[in-house]
């Protein structure tokens, strides 16, 4: 059967989809019958308190890693790198929607040992940032099981694996250990992730995938992962190669602020952007947006999100010794 689904033909693709759906049903049963957990008590404490606690955690984490590290893959599309995780023996890879982008793209899957394989992207949910890739070569893949993200508790331990900065030859998948800090639309952990990790797996202490790396914010405690349940909930659409969702039209100015500056100093103005048309210049300092004072990128972002493309705003800007008022018509972010 494996050879059948991996033959790259249109008819066979349909077969493979049915088969994949069947696999999922099997997995579903496996979760229900999950063996009793033998997770050490140290994991239940607010924090490990002794060397014994640390040893217990370490032993268990090592055990989990020995089962799951090899399922983590690198994903390359042209010059871009992301990560992913193989979740069944047919070679379906979970990744982030912004890694796979759209359906039907050729990608390269890089196994933990550097083996490179061909793959094709399947469906994408742009709202939840979930995506699938099918490995299109035949072989026996090490895969991880999908867990459940619903009902997870704050403080629950987890392991993030991926390829920060993109796959690097000679570097095994990179492991980080942390805790779940929050779960609603996304899972939030203190497992620090960065560009290139996108699409990589977050595992629970049963060694099951509970999330897929998606986004970060500045603090090291804000690392967001797509909850695994959304993959299961939308599985058939994803496998069929449907692409849906996408950002609502967000107001766009076309500037880059200086991340080192304490104020809103403009570091870059994209040519042809609304900011460019409004004659905003590099080194201008934004003082007010639409009549409201702005002192940081966060404040500007908050105000910007309250606007829609087409809205007109007045910017108060300091340029050298002068203070200027500029009229700017917000646009749509170019794709």
């Amino acid at each position, binding site marked *: 059967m494996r050879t059948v689904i991996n033959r790259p033909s249109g008819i066979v693709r349909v077969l493979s989809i049915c088969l994949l759906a069947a696999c999922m049903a099997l997995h579903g049963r496996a979760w229900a019958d999950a063996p009793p957990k033998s997770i050490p008590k140290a994991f239940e404490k607010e*924090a490990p308190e002794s060397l014994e606690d640390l040893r217990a955690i*370490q032993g268990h984490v090592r055990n989990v890693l020995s089962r799951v590290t090899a399922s983590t893959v690198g994903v390359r599309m042209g010059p871009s790198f992301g990560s992913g995780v193989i979740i069944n023996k047919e070679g379906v890879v979970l990744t982030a929607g912004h890694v796979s982008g759209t359906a039907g793209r050729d990608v390269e899957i890089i196994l933990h040992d550097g083996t490179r394989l061909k793959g094709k992207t399947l469906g994408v949910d742009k709202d939840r940032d979930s995506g699938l890739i099918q490995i299109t070569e035949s072989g026996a893949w090490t895969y991880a099981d999908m867990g459940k993200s619903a009902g997870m508790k704050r403080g629950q331990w987890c*392991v993030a694996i991926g390829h920060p900065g993109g796959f690097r030859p000679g570097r095994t998948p990179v492991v980080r250990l942390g805790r779940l800090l929050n779960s609603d639309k996304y899972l939030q952990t203190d497992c620090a992730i960065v560009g290139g990790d996108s699409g990589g797996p977050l595992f629970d202490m049963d060694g099951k995938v509970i999330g897929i790396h998606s986004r970060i914010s500045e603090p090291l405690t804000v690392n*967001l992962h797509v909850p695994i349940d959304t993959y299961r909930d939308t599985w058939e659409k994803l496998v069929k190669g449907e692409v849906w969702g996408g950002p609502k039209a967000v107001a766009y100015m076309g500037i880059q602020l200086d991340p080192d500056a304490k104020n809103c100093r403009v570091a870059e103005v994209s040519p042809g952007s609304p900011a460019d048309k409004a004659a905003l210049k590099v080194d201008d300092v934004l003082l007010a947006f639409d009549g409201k004072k702005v002192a940081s990128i966060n404040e500007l972002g908050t105000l910007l999100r309250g606007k829609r493309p087409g809205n007109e705003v007045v910017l108060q800007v300091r340029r050298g010794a002068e203070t200027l008022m500029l009229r700017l018509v917000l646009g749509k972010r170019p794709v």
Partner: protein
Amino acid sequence: MYRHICFAILGLAVFFGDALAQRGKNFLRDNPRFKSAFRQIVAKPAEGTVRVLAEGKEVALGIVVASDGWILTKAHDLSQPIECRLKDGRTFAASWVGHHKDHDLALLRIDAEGLPVVPLADSKDTPVGNWVACAGMGEHPVAFGVVSVAARTVDSKGPASANPRAGYLGIALESSPDGLRISQIIPKSAADKANLKVDDIILTLEGRPVSREPQEFIARMQKTRPGQTVKLHIKRTDVELDIQAKLEKRPFNRGDFQNALGSDLSNRRSGYPVILQFDGVLKPTDCGGPLVNLDGQVIGLTISRAGRTETYAIPAETIKPLLADLKSGKLPPPKEDARPDRKSKAAPKSSKLDKDERGALDALLSLMHRRLALMPEVARAKWNAGLPVADPVRERAFLDAIASQAKDLRADPERARRFFRDAA
């Protein structure tokens, strides 16, 4: 030579970070109880950990590798004068004896005896997923985390992530049989404006020869600042040219930007031949100290806070075989005023020498060269005989004598002192 990675990027949720950051405080690594679980294992290595100060500023930690005053630390941020503050509060002036550029290790010597040595173990028994802690000078570790990637040899084709605050020249380099070749010029960059061309061979940077390997040049450029003018001596076909380039600010790079989120990074973050990677968040100035496993073994010396997700250590098994060479003087520290980021001290007014002066200088330099060439052998002999390689007390007496002689001859005593210190 730079890998032009356009990261498959994590969307940045920069806007709602503040609220989320407050959640789950009790579970985080800054929970004091969590930290104190590591107390037992860092207690012993902390005794042999020292604070390293350069020009009076805390720049790194260091570890005692031999009880008679030998301190191993991270080299990159060192500049003279160097001091070491011990756990007992005593502070010593340190002489910089050895420097391994690739590994970024510096061996210092202080005039002290009977120091508690930090024994080096082996990182091989501490696989991925094991806890590691960074001993500092206090009771608690200065950072802790798990091993993310075991010790590995890095096949480095350039920096993993360049210092975003360093000066930016705008060239790509490659090693060629003729030397360090410019393979690409970024349009409108500092290099373009300075009229550098593709295929130019770079011979020197700020008067110092450059290695054929791009890493060395890149590492030196990391210490520059935007706005600074650097001097390059280059070869273009058969002509040699002096070029001055006014460095600019590095253009925005998403990878660099994301890596800089959340923590301060070390000035040097790449080019290490062997590294062990862990996920602890270590302050750049706390690098250079011991990395300890749960058995209390020191498995490495921390070397760089390299990115949002990564901190590096040089594995202990890599360090051990280097110690003899570092002590021997075979790997001398950089000459003080040749350091690119230091203001040159009052250069001689005229470099024009007459024939006799040049002859005398050549003779002197040749003697100095012979003396330096002998040094490793002398050091090795002393080392094998169990004698201290450096003898700071005798050295000081000797230099004092030189200074007073110089004074008698109406020469600058400080310069004479420096000459002999460097030569001997």
